[in-house]
């Protein structure tokens, strides 16, 4: 018997040359197991983040101060759920089910963005999350529009459009407060104080310490390094902070004329590790909420399955 199958080394070389020439990898294409695993990890983490992120903002839907704000917020949280759905589907193209991905989340094997382990304590936080958290996500996701895996790249194109919309809405909500009463200004500043550093942490550890980075860059799953993205975010955000008349809680922040970029202080990496390690203010609450809702919805999903089975039996008869 002749074996036309290329061996693993040849396949991998062909794969890498496709990546190097900026061709997209599609679900049916051969891919190294490590590439597939790496993508599942990153894409499902992204999907879980969209869904868990519904909690801190959803927390304010019932308390939104005007009808318009209520509509905008509810629609935003709904969008995030849609992003989650879209990303779960894209991840499923890699041969894994949404149920498996959610099990991994519930069992602590999969992560979500650590930023959502912080609480949304005031109405200003809704604005700040839209402006800064969605803003940071966009900086990352814009580069992911060119990621090597086709379904992921395409989902990023669509999601980015909505995220920029969220960012503008968040900024606008905060602007009203920053120009409002002394209490509102104080609320806005307090919110920025609490979210600034956690948002910078969203870009992950320094490049040198980032465990998954090298491989991800080689495979063009990731297109820019953590530190590059963080710097880009700071450079674009500081003028927006100044326009609001607010101040970031970083005494070391200053414009560096030579570099043409902002210098900024060191992130508290101990806090980063602490929150990622499960000791943020809301880790248990976020995960437990997701587990509880999943448990409570089981009878509905069972009913749906039973009804569909009956329908099929009827149409077969």
């Amino acid at each position, binding site marked *: 018997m002749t074996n036309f199958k290329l061996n693993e080394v040849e396949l991998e070389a062909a794969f890498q040359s496709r990546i190097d020439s900026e061709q997209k990898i599609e679900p049916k294409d051969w891919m190294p197991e490590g590439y597939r695993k790496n993508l599942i990890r990153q894409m499902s983490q992204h999907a879980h983040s969209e869904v868990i992120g519904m909690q801190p903002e959803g927390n304010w839907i019932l308390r939104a101060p005007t009808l318009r704000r209520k509509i905008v917020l509810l*629609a935003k949280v*709904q969008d995030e759920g849609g992003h*989650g759905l879209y990303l779960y589907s894209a991840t499923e193209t890699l041969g894994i089910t949404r149920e498996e991905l959610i099990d991994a989340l519930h069992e602590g094997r999969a992560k979500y963005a650590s930023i959502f382990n912080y609480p949304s304590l005031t109405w200003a936080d809704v604005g700040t999350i839209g402006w800064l958290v969605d803003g940071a996500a966009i900086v990352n996701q814009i580069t992911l529009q060119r990621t090597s895996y086709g379904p992921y790249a395409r989902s990023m194109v669509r999601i980015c459009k909505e995220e920029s919309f969220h960012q503008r809405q968040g900024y606008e909500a905060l602007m*009203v407060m920053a120009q409002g009463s002394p209490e509102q200004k104080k609320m806005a500043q307090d919110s920025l104080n609490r979210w600034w550093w956690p948002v910078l942490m969203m870009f992950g550890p320094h490049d040198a310490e980032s465990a998954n980075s090298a491989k991800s860059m080689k495979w063009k799953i990731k297109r820019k390094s953590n530190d590059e993205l963080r710097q880009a975010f700071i450079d674009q955000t500081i003028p927006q902070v100044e326009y609001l008349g607010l101040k970031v809680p970083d005494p070391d922040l200053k414009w560096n004329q030579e570099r043409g970029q902002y210098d900024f202080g060191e992130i508290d990496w101990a806090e980063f590790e602490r929150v990622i390690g499960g000791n943020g203010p809301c880790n248990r609450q976020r995960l437990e909420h997701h587990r509880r809702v999943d448990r409570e919805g089981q009878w509905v999903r069972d009913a749906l399955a039973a009804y569909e089975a009956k329908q099929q039996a009827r149409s077969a008869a």
Partner: protein
Amino acid sequence: MKDKQDDLINYVIALGDDSLILGQRLSEWCYHAPFLEEDLALANVALDFIGRAQMFYEYASQLETRVLKENARSADQIAFLRDTRDYRNLLIVELPIGDFAFTMARQFTVDVFNQLYLQQLVNSTDSTLAAIAGKAIKETDYHLRRSQEWMLRLGDGTDESHQRMEKALKELWGYTAELFTMSAYETALLRDGISIDRTALCSDWRKIVTELLQQATLKVPSDEWQVTGGREGLHTEHQGDILAKMQYLQRTYPGLEW
């Protein structure tokens, strides 16, 4: 003339209250639904109702402006700055969301009613109300398709879902009578063809609901009890809980822009 204007304002606000309070209740499901698709769908329905409330309140605000000039309330003031006794919504919309069966049973009974009601309201001699109804009826067609489907799924799903659904129907049945109860201001507006005769919709509603419940293998609850009062501001205790949350920022920081 002034009385007639008051009747119209009260009527429009009552319709707004029905939409707002139901929308507020439905939005409680966002990130609490049995699966992600349902989070999105329930949020969609909630958005329709809150948007509808906004249209009614904007109109009420315009009507007030004609009479009260600069002392008229804005839509948000109407929505957020009244106390329990001044809200005019039907009791059925203020009841807590309960389990998914209760939410869907309520939605179904209200959707059937809304469809019948809006089909009439599009012919209102008040062109603004007719226009709002014209937009709302398309949304309601979609809401009803959904809630109807869920009645079938849960009624004819598992034993547990069937039991939960029958329990839900029993718990809310006595509140459905109010859908067909005319308030004084609605009656007053009837002669000019502005409002709708709710009592006339009852038999059609019953027919549609009964047929679907039968199809869903569910019993139609008996009419042993009924409670009304929402239109006169005689609410359940749940109304206060809704308002405490909804009005929190407006009450804590009075008179600010958000």
